[in-house]
């Protein structure tokens, strides 16, 4: 390998991570043709990997890639001149590219994210779409993260990009009245991708582990681009709190360790500080949204473990507030578990949602795990064992299965 090759590769990878979405957003802003922008950019990266080892990486790699990609984009439009709307397309590209100085490319990634999370895009595709066009992840990686087939995922992503262009989905930050709902679609998509990354907390699956890092980057980026939106700050804080505890969630044998038993020396205190700083910035404003509340909850859990000071009253109050905004069984279950710490398992069992009233719960693993735990503490051994069996049968992480099996056998051998 020639001396410069490794450097050129590293520079290209660094620019790809930092600037991929920025360049796609800029190239596609006027024509809304995300696929064409991605193709042009891919060609520009290929040229970079061919040229930079010989010539050395340019001083401003972003501007270099922009210049090459805009040329590729115009070439591609020319080649497709059979297409009926070729002239206006070319006009748009030329105007946009001519008007702007490549040294100072405006950051339109946020507008691109709003296009990807538009209500006209199918909800389950919004997160994959953002991961692909803002971060440049390939369809295979995304498919494995979302437990989908690569070819199906690839086709659906192509379809979604076609829709952005053909249906005229705007590349814009929505007007004030639409902003809260539309922003929450963007944040929900980022969070959905993050929780997919969490389904492999042991980090054995490379695609999933990377996804957590990538989505943290996205959440941070959104918070930076919308510093006045408490929910954007709240989501980033929530994710940093969760990430900070990752090293403590497994013991040396790879077994699952619940929060109450985690070794706090393994927590990443820098990330906890970062999260708390974000919460303080968000809290300076009036409204309390879903992510801000969830971040406050994570912060309170961390605070309790770090100081040893009981704060379950505060935690139950935060869950009460969250339940007013998000009427989800997940919130109700976590609230019941907090009530157990305050009032004991009896009150908590009363606070649990009813599986007969909500059929979704019967296939929801955390519901059965929570119920099993509460029943065991309450002394209802037989019902607890049945609930543990349900939880074990519904779990896909072997480490969590082992943890639940251990809990189940401890319950069975307990003196009545």
């Amino acid at each position, binding site marked *: 390998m020639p001396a410069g090759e490794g450097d050129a590769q590293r520079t290209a990878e660094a620019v790809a991570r930092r600037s991929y979405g920025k360049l796609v957003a800029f190239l596609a802003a006027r024509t809304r043709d995300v696929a064409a922008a991605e193709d042009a950019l891919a060609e520009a990266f290929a040229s970079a990997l061919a040229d930079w080892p010989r010539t050395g990486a340019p001083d401003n790699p972003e501007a270099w890639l922009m210049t090459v990609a805009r040329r590729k984009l115009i070439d591609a439009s020319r080649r497709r001149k059979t297409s*009926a*709307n070729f002239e206006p397309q070319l006009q748009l590209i030329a105007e946009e590219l001519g008007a702007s100085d490549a040294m100072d490319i405006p950051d339109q990634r946020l507008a691109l994210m709003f296009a990807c999370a*538009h209500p*006209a895009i199918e909800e389950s595709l919004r997160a994959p779409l953002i991961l692909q066009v803002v971060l440049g992840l390939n369809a295979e990686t995304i498919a494995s993260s979302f437990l989908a087939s690569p070819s199906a995922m690839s086709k659906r992503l192509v379809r979604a990009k076609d829709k952005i262009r*053909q*249906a*005229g*989905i*705007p590349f*814009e930050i*929505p007007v004030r009245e*639409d902003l809260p709902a539309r922003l929450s679609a963007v944040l929900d998509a980022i969070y959905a991708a993050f929780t997919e990354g969490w389904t492999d907390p042991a980090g054995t699956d490379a695609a999933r582990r990377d996804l957590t890092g990538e989505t943290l980057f996205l959440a941070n980026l959104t918070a930076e681009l919308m510093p006045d939106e408490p929910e954007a700050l709240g989501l980033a804080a929530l994710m940093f709190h969760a990430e900070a505890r990752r090293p403590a969630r497994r013991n040396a044998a790879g077994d699952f360790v619940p929060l109450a038993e985690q070794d706090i020396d393994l927590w990443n205190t820098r990330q906890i500080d970062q999260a708390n700083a974000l919460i303080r910035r968000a809290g300076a404003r009036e409204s309390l949204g879903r992510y801000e509340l969830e971040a406050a909850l994570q912060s309170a859990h961390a605070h309790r473990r770090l100081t040893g000071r009981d704060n379950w009253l505060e935690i139950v109050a935060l869950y009460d507030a969250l339940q007013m905004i998000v009427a989800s069984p997940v919130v109700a279950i976590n609230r019941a578990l907090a009530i157990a710490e305050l009032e004991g398992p009896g009150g908590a069992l009363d606070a649990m949602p009813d599986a007969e009233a909500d059929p979704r719960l019967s296939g929801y693993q955390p519901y059965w795990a929570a119920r099993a735990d509460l029943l065991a503490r309450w002394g209802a051994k037989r019902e607890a064992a049945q609930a543990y069996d349900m939880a074990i049968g519904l779990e896909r992480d072997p480490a969590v299965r082992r943890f639940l099996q251990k809990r189940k056998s401890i319950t069975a051998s307990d003196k009545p």
Partner: protein
Amino acid sequence: MQYLLMIYGEEGGWNALPEAAQKEGLAAYTAYGEALRKAGKLINANRLRDTPDATRVTVANGKTKVQDGPYADTKEQLGGYYLIEAKDLDEAISWAARCPGASHGIVEVRPVWEM
């Protein structure tokens, strides 16, 4: 871009309305059309007759087949449309949401294929 806003609703619903409500509905549609026109967005709009007046035509093997009734026999039927000019999907959606048809039925927004 041009968008076709298609109003789907339950047929017979209109006739079942009391006269006062029909009057109100008519006034709402008139006002909506007027607002579109004044904003310079309206290209064309029409109300369609009910599906008992619909006829399906197909040509296969050189033979024309003519049948009574609409293409899809569903409860919600196409009852009218607005062809509008909008800068993007969001603008089209905001006009669709103002259409009285969105309150008593469904408005489907379809971008027009630009030639």
